[in-house]
């Protein structure tokens, strides 16, 4: 898949921008705050109809303007597509494919897949279980749309059950006939989701491990485990016996919404014992595994966006990454770096395949 060009109007710090990307590798260099990440974010909009950084769409409209518009032309195999995403203040966001607006914007997601690696990603490691569940849920949903449906149903049932728990606690008299159907939904869907997650992790782990090994030259051993209460054979009865506690807390204490993915380095939690570089390598390996999985699913290569990826990686790991780029393991790539000299040096060997762009406060210039 190839993004041939993009044009922006009033998007973040870009008033207007038109730029073509004929090459596979595209580097954006420029000072802090010049707009490198914003340009990646515009590409993110075209793929996923939203920002990777700010979920409040209207805050991505340029200050003091009342709309933004992002347009790009994609090529998938030999077919060409135009995608446009625009937002008028106080109106609904509009996403168009070949000039035709979607009725449900969510239908666009997955058509032009993209994987973004950026400095905030280490939140997956350092943050709570919710972020880790979301990371995996998004990937599993892409391969199996039924999974997303089950997950949404589950979350809805969970919300209903939690409201009921609160009402029971307030009235002091639980009505088993009322809660029983929700228990059943949560158990049935919970087991399905648990099975899907287990299956997925089994498939994901070897791909992930391969990437980590390759990046680190097997310097350290890392592991990734999926943990869930649902592996207990007596889970269903434990769930039902937990009602009194659930009522006291107004919330359902057991279930797949408490699942987690445990990351370790040399058998210690990566969160506490991993260096910044090791955590960053771990995240890159996670994301590259995500890339491979989507690529297999789609039978074409997603876009790869690398935002400030070189910071905190040692020379060896940078070299390894570059080797992968050089071997054309990926399709089109967009890289940002605040240090042009470093990028120039890193990409020296790949010169012919690449365009280097200098970004200066919302303007772009290709460097020969």
């Amino acid at each position, binding site marked *: 898949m190839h993004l041939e060009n993009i044009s922006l109007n009033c998007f973040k710090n870009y008033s207007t921008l038109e730029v073509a990307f004929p090459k596979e590798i595209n580097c954006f260099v420029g000072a802090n705050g010049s707009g490198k990440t914003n340009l990646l974010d515009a590409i993110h909009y075209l793929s996923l109809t939203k920002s990777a950084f700010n979920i409040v769409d209207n805050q991505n409209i340029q200050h003091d303007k009342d709309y933004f518009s992002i347009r790009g032309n994609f090529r998938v195999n030999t077919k060409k597509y135009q995608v446009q995403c625009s937002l008028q203040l106080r109106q609904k966001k509009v996403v168009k494919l070949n000039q035709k607006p979607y009725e449900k914007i969510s239908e666009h997601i997955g058509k032009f897949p993209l994987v973004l690696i950026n400095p905030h990603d280490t939140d997956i490691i350092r943050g709570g279980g919710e972020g880790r569940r979301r990371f995996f849920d998004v990937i599993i949903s892409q391969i199996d749309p039924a999974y997303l449906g089950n997950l949404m*149903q589950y979350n*809805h*049932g969970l*919300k*209903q*059950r939690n*409201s*009921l728990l609160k*009402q029971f606690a307030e009235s002091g008299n639980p*009505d088993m*006939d*009322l809660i*029983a*159907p*929700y228990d059943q*939904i949560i158990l049935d869907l919970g087991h399905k989701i648990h099975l899907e997650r287990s299956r997925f992790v089994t498939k994901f782990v070897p791909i992930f491990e391969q990437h980590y090994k390759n990046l680190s030259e097997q310097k350290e051993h890392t592991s990734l485990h999926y943990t869930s209460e649902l592996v207990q054979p007596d889970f269903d009865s434990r769930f039902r016996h937990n009602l009194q506690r659930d009522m006291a807390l107004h919330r359902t204490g057991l279930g797949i919404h408490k699942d987690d993915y445990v990351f370790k380095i040399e058998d210690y939690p990566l969160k506490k014992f991993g260096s910044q570089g090791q955590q960053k390598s771990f995240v890159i390996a996670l994301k590259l595994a995500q890339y491979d999985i989507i690529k297999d699913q789609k039978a074409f290569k997603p876009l790869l966006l690398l935002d400030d990826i070189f910071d905190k990686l040692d020379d060896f790991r940078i070299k390894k990454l570059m080797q992968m780029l050089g071997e054309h393991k990926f399709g089109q790539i967009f890289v940002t770096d605040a240090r042009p000299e470093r990028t120039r040096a890193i990409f020296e060997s790949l010169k012919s395949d690449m365009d280097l762009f200098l970004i200066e406060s919302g303007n772009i210039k290709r460097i020969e």
Partner: protein
Amino acid sequence: MQYPSKLIEDAVNEISQLPGIGKKTALRLVIHLLKQDKESTLHLSEALVNLRTQVKYCKVCHNISDEEVCNICSSHRRDHTVICVVENLPDLMAIENTAQYNGTYHILGGIISPIEGIGPDDLKIDSLIQRIKNRSNEVNEVILALSSTMEGDTTAFYLTKKLKDFDLKVSTIARGIPVGGELEYADEITLGRSILSRTAYLHG
């Protein structure tokens, strides 16, 4: 929006309270009314006032009715041993339009949804039980015709539990209706078929 007249503004504000009508549409309707002769607006407002002040609910099934008891409940040609339980009036009308059903109805007035704070006590469940308890009614079958959403299923489950001690056949309409679908929007053929091939509820 700025209006040249307070009268227009008031009318627009009232009309735009209606579901699915924004200020722009409301303004278009107001201007349309002003172009018509006075009579037609008076007829409209009279109909609305009468609707709101004179409407009655059938004391048996809670259907909207001009009398104490609606014309379905008072008809001798309907089968009073069968009650079809629906969520609301549009669902009742949808089933009536299939012309496949000859029993009576019971309108719950909603569906159980804890998030929205709607529990069994907010629905007309007691009056349903009373109808069944009253032997002279000779009710021997209850059909649960609720939307196949999580809330519809939960409500059906709850009702089944409440009805299990009566000597009754309890069935739910067959799911020709798309899962997650709202009864009101199902086409008549699908809905008619679903009523005919209803399936018995297993007491769990």
